């Protein structure tokens, strides 16, 4: 059987953040399971003297993918405060020097990361990996809450769609 009919949910997902080549990777363990991305398509409507029926549509400019997720916050500083501490999310997303994370884009360009989102098939048949390359940060919001403080990331992947593969 190629696929299963079991709906995937947040339990099945795992988000890994990677820098360039050998720089450290971070598996996000305390994320809320709210990763969201949007693939946009721009279209130019050409109307014929105001008529849609006689008009046509053309492809517009390509659009990058917007994505967001949030994670519970344990500490902001890990290796910056103690080299023996595990890598922390805040340090990775902000490219803190102590984290050792390296941008996937060349020097002089905006710093970017690779996000790998794996969705495991609960039946173990058709797991998938969704890879977002050249992810840059638009905002990083730290907020307090009753149960947990949150780090909320919003950004864009400078690609038109993530690369999805069966694993």
């Amino acid at each position: 059987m190629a696929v299963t009919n079991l709906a995937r949910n947040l339990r099945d997902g795992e988000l890994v953040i990677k820098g360039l080549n050998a720089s450290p990777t971070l598996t996000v363990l305390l994320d809320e399971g709210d990763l969201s991305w949007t693939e946009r398509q721009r279209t130019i409507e050409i109307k014929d003297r105001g008529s849609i029926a006689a008009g046509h549509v053309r492809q517009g400019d390509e659009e990058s993918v917007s994505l967001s997720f949030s994670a519970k916050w344990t500490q902001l500083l890990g290796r910056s405060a103690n080299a023996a501490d595990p890598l922390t999310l805040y340090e990775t997303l902000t490219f803190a020097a102590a984290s050792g994370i390296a941008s996937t884009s060349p020097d002089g360009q905006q710093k970017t990361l690779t996000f790998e989102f794996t969705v495991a098939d609960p039946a173990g048949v058709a797991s998938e990996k969704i890879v977002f390359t050249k992810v840059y940060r638009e905002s990083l919001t730290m907020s307090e809450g009753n149960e947990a403080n949150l780090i909320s990331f919003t950004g864009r992947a400078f690609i038109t769609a993530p690369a999805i593969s069966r694993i």
Partner: protein
Amino acid sequence: MLALHDISTTLHAYWLSAAPAGVPTMLSGINAATAESADWFEYWIDLLEGAVRRDAGPDEQTLLVTVHCFSKQTRDTLRAQSLADDAVQILARRTLPIHPSGDPDTTTGYVRISEPSLQHLTRLHIVERQQPLQHVVVSFTARATAMPT
């Protein structure tokens, strides 16, 4: 995965170490002799509910910890309230390390106890038992979180 046994042991041991001297506590599975006592506690973990999480995320459990405060005293009509205050003082907003059975040097997680909720049930016993019995229930929600592995 946090074991219910370890969570219960943590909460029971802490309570027994801090409970007011001279006031017996009835724990689940243990019958305390309350006939001789004017005051006593009953200490329960009524609910344990797993939080939704990633497969790779740390185990989290939401607990309901309930302390029933009983008093048969007739002169001090606010004795159960005093016992409830003691329970709040002992448990509210505490964070306790969870140790696996027989290994006090290892910490597998923490229990974080939140603010209390109190219910005064004395009047029910007056109706049912036709004898004075003060009864105040103190409830706490708590969250047990496993250490990342």
